[in-house]
């Protein structure tokens, strides 16, 4: 498909394909991201949770490598230590964008979800609206921050810093349609080797609300293992019910109020 935004023509959305089976947990993506985007460190404390000391995506950590240890003493060969570089998913139906009251969060010409820092007023509505827990308000800047998919680099025809720095090509950047073809081939290759893998964010249950993800993953286990929601839910899904409930409640209150007042009037 061809899309036009701000006069720039792109033939397809641009995104990430992150292959967990190739990640060596070097965290070069985290560092390259922080350096390019000039994000501060999150403090110096050992978590004791494997080699993960940044713990989560946050307003200042836009790439986060999760470490999953599955060591098996009974069947040593089944032992695994998996690393996954997590990132904003740049959803087709982005909860943050839906919730943003100021229009600060937009879909840019690369079809990526972008927070305009000069428009954001820091209300934080986007924060609970993201089913992946990605976006957060940074206390110092006072605005919501998350991965921009290196919007500035893309504008100059460069790939995002994380993908550029990934030594094993676990993070690939490109046209989402092309990345999907690569991903399918990779899945077929791994399945032929007898490995159980799946894609997350292409067409599974996880896309019911949020739609296909521009940043999607190849994972060798269930999504929950990597802290990915198996069925991410958008708050807007509850809107009809919430409005209906609200209307019903209002109607009920009106009816109640009318009755009370009528009674009171009657008594007077």
């Amino acid at each position, binding site marked *: 498909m061809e899309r036009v935004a701000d006069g720039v023509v792109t033939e397809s959305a641009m995104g990430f394909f992150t292959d967990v089976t*190739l990640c*060596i*947990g*070097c*965290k*070069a993506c*985290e*560092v390259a991201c*922080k*350096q390019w985007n000039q994000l*501060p*460190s*999150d*403090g*110096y*404390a*050992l978590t*004791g949770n*494997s*080699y993960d*000391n*940044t713990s989560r995506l946050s307003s200042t950590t836009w790439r986060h490598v999760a470490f999953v*240890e599955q*060591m*098996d*003493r009974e069947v*040593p*060969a089944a*032992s*695994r*230590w*998996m*690393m996954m570089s997590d990132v904003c998913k740049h959803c087709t139906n982005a909860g943050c964008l839906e919730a943003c009251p100021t229009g600060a969060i937009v879909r840019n010409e690369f079809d990526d979800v972008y927070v305009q820092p000069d428009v954001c007023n820091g209300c934080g509505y986007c924060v609970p609206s993201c089913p992946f827990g990605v976006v957060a308000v940074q206390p110092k800047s006072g605005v919501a921050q998350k991965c921009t998919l290196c919007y500035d680099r893309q504008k100059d025809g460069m790939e995002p810093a994380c993908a550029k720095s990934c*030594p*094993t*090509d676990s993070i690939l950047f490109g046209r989402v349609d092309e990345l999907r073809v690569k991903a399918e081939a990779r899945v077929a*290759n791994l399945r032929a*080797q007898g490995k159980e893998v799946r894609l997350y964010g292409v067409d599974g249950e996880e896309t019911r609300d949020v739609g296909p993800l521009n940043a999607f993953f190849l994972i060798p286990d269930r999504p929950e293992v990597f802290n990915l929601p198996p069925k991410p839910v958008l708050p807007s899904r509850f809107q009809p019910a919430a409005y209906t409930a609200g209307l019903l409640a209002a109607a009920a209150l009106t009816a109640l109020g009318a009755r009370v007042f009528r009674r009171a009037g009657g008594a007077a």
Partner: protein
Amino acid sequence: MPGLGTLYGRGGATTFLMDLEHADLIIIQGSNFAENHPVGFRFVTKAKERGAKVIHVDPRFTRTSALADQYLPIRSGTDIAFTGGIINYVLENKAYFEEYVLHYTNASYIIDEKFVDTEDLDGIFSGFNPDKGTYDPATWKYELDESAGGEASQADGSADDAKGGGTSPTTGGHPAHGTKRPKKDPTLQHPRCAINVMRKHFARYTPDVVERICGTPKEQFIDLCKLVVANSGRSKTMTYCYAMGWAQHTVGVQNIRAAATLQALLGNTGRPGGGVMALRGHASIQGSTDIATLFDLFPGYIKSPSLERGEDSFENWKKNWAKPTGWWSNWPKYAVSQMKAWFGDAATAENGWAFDYLPLNTGDHSHMPLFFTMKDGGVEGLILWGQNPAVGGQNAALQRAALGKLKWMICQDLFETESAAFWKREGVDPATIPTEIFFMPAAGVAEKPGSFTNTMRLVQWHEKAVDPPDDARSDLSLAWNLGKRVKELYKDSTRKIDRPVLDITWDYESDDPHERALGEPDAEKVLREINGYVVATGEHMKTFADLKDDGTTAAGAWIYTGCFPAPGQNHTRRRTGDGWVSLEWAWAWPANRRNLYNRASADPDGKPWSEEKKYIWWDEEAKKWTGYDVPDFPVVKPPSFRAQPGAKGMDAHDGTAPFLMQEYGVAEIFGVQGTVDGPLPTHYEPRESPVPNALYPHQQYNPVLKEWRRRDNPYHAIGDPNYPYVLSTYRLTEHHLTGAMTRWNSWLAELQPEAFCEMSPELAVELGIRNGDWVTVSTARGEVEAKAMVTGRIAPFKIGPKQWVHQIGLPIHFGYQGLVTGDSANVLPPMVADPNVSIHEAKVFTCNVRLGRRGASHEGPTWLPVPPEEQTPLGTPKRGGRVESGSAEQVDHEIASPSEIMAGARRRHDLDHQESEG
């Protein structure tokens, strides 16, 4: 590096990283490839995508194991037993590549009848001198064919290296056999031909023994052996990758020899997807051995003259190193050109090329003896460049104390490292430190031009991007300006002893006014000198084949000749890759050859072994060698060429001899030269081990290892119950070495912010330690505290029916300076060294662990006065000698199995719960 040098001829990785993609099997052992060489690991993942199998053999389940197809546990310090086990499997099943072995190795050469193996001498080879604790390798040689012509060696082939105690030749060695040819048995039947000597030597390395020594499950080991054999041969190849996990042992060199031996037996070296990949740990560690930070090597692996070897004149020096046969017959050309590069017109034939200007080695001046001497007050001043011994040195507390005995110290670094700030560390009163310290701020890599020589001998130029801030300058600038000022101070001297200072060539002045104003020399002018030039015309040398021994050429390091063949043609700047051999990407020594010994990729007749593994072959029509790489062979020497008796130089090699640096052009699986601790790898326990040597009960550890028995460097006894656990130190991806660059960077510091101690759940339960608790790890050298990281990635090793060895791990990165600080793991290990290259044994020693934080004084016995008889005058290493293993009851205490421990823990847990619920 002698591990590779003595076997194949050159002390560098035989292959290149991109070639890993062409391997059918990759074994990573003694290396945490993914964590410490993440960029190179790209080619391992590419190989995996192509269907190659990747095996990781390691004491810990690391990020490399995570990406491997199979992980095999191995107790630290038992790699020779493991690799020897594979060698035994290959020999017993006749699974070696017979044609390759017959033509390209010394397998068929008959060994001198006076040689006696460890199997017959209870753990030592013939020639052992128990008083000195050294070997005389006189019996480690071939039986010569007296019927054929030629001269016997004119040099005395006795134990130069053992005597000197220095590192052994990294490439080549002293003449061993003259121009006579060894006797051979092409049928491989003779009981004394090398392969049969080896068969006998490794016969006891059975899968059962491997399991008992290494703790590797037998079935898993046998499966691996089968995989190795299935992936070697005409149409398949495997690569062995190693790094510090093999090197940092008292048997470091032999660890590497074992793998190189196996690769030669399987016919994998010199072929695409094969060879031994030595992974270098930091940016130019290969470069720093090439040009030449070791005390006993000049650039290009030319051994610096040693008084102990009688090398007191150029002629006597030459006599020891210029070999009659093979590539080292060219030694005089390289040595003379080097002297011309250094001393210009002052080096003449008449004055032995200014030989008298050279300092002569008088013994072992490697790092550890140097620091002992410093501690004993024998060193006045020190210049520290790119080194941080206060954190990186073994028995680091001793090294810190040693720095405090200096009168002055210059430290040039990016930040004020622990070594620069040793005088204000915890527990030290600065008023008691007399050392005057000059801290010089250094330029970062993007602030200066220069070259890096990486793991695959690839010399890559990097440009300067910005000026360094404030007073920061390049290391080169400090060296050059220091030299200029010293020359200025001596300019009116007439004393003979000052001539070297006055005559040394020092003309690296930059032509760029901006750089001149900064005081920065021209790094490319240094590269030009390294590359070499014609003395009369200044024309750049194009190849080392053109170097002369008559003083008409100059070259700072012959192996780099050709990297800068003409002004404006700095090949190390090139950046055109083709996805594989990439001959147009930078420049690799020697002569831009990427896969060394690549003549072995063709059969003896010069035809590829198979279509799949085609690489270099003989083009019959063009009458030359051709292929995808630069042939590592005389280009026009046909496969049919046969050396005549008595031939000298390269004419002494047949057209079928791919290992051209070696005496007879073949890989020396029986090591007749170069290693000082035996011609064959042998399993010894580490210097400190909780268990006795199961193979040789009367020889616990390497009989010729270097050790320093002093009260400030105490060693643990075998199976010492006070120190029951094995400790390995290692690095993490997130930090670089001592953290001198990374712990000052907030983005890296947050990723690994604190020192931690990895331990198994089994041990943690036994000691009542929970994840995240403070623990104190102690040895007789000191103690350090760290947070416990309890993880199933660490597992105890089962080495007997009822015996288990617990191993723990500590990263080395922490110190008392920087954004994030912590105790330095290197306070714990002893100073003890491999006899060949003086490398320390950081990968395995014993320790204790307890719950809780350490006390205030943790730096061990460094304050103890060392009596004169224990002091270490520079140049007199002490040797290990013959040491009996510990008695059985001392070490055979029963340790409950992990499952028993865990069952107990679960029971306790259940009880706790019942109580709290009740």
